[in-house]
């Protein structure tokens, strides 16, 4: 062992803990022993509480998602029904207009025939 090692050994020699160190450790041990014992089942509940909260949050999220999707679906269906109704109305209007034109033409043809018969 050389000088530096000897000096190190001396400089790093063991030092005593502060006064009452042992008493403070014993007090902490005693405090830990005095903590009330948990009833059977309580421990498990306390351990699972965070999991339970996550489960509730997940269920709420699921319900909100499903309801949101249903509302969205209903709105899409309503929009599709409205569009279909509009198309039917337009189709009926077009059909009515065409029928009127056809009726007018038939009437015109009938009137023309009547005039020709009278002149003959």
């Amino acid at each position, binding site marked *: 062992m*050389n*000088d*530096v*090692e000897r*000096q*190190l*050994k*001396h*400089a*790093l*020699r*063991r*030092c*005593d*803990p*502060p006064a009452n*160190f042992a008493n*403070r*450790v014993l007090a*902490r*041990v005693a405090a*830990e022993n005095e903590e009330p014992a948990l009833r059977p089942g309580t421990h498990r509940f306390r351990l699972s509480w965070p999991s339970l909260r996550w489960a509730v949050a997940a269920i709420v999220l699921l319900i909100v998602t499903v309801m949101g999707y249903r509302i969205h679906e209903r709105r899409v269906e309503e929009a599709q029904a409205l569009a279909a109704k509009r198309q039917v109305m337009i189709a009926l209007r077009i059909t009515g207009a065409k029928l009127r034109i056809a009726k007018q033409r038939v009437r015109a043809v009938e009137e023309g025939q009547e005039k020709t018969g009278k002149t003959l």
Partner: protein
Amino acid sequence: MVFSIAFRFLRDRAVAEELAQDVFLKLYRELSRLESREHVKFWLRKVISHRSMDYARGAHRRREVALDDVLEPAVQSNGSDPLLENSLRKLVASLPEEARMVIVLRYQEEMEPQEIAETLGLPLATVKSRLRRSLVLLRGKAQRLMGEPAR
């Protein structure tokens, strides 16, 4: 032993006491698992070493402890130079955590490199190399500090 390892490593009396108390509380909880007096001694050294190094790494990140500002405890000097001792302790404190703990265990606890390797969970070669490098470093720094060659 437990308080002393933490204190020599961290140079903070309050933190060393807190860590030492934690270790003794942990010992109380795990006493039934320990088989012999030697096992308890090994366990105490191991746990306080790791706790101290973990704390130092955290404190290094937080920059909470200014090592040069920490007061040394009043210890009997036994005729040696207190200034030299204090300088050596400061030099040891400037070493990286692992190397510092190797030095503390070697020169405070007088543990063999094999025992240090087992305590810190390091390969024996690593412990020997840390010890050798740290001594070279400390010798060089001590020479510069004292202005005289240290053998």
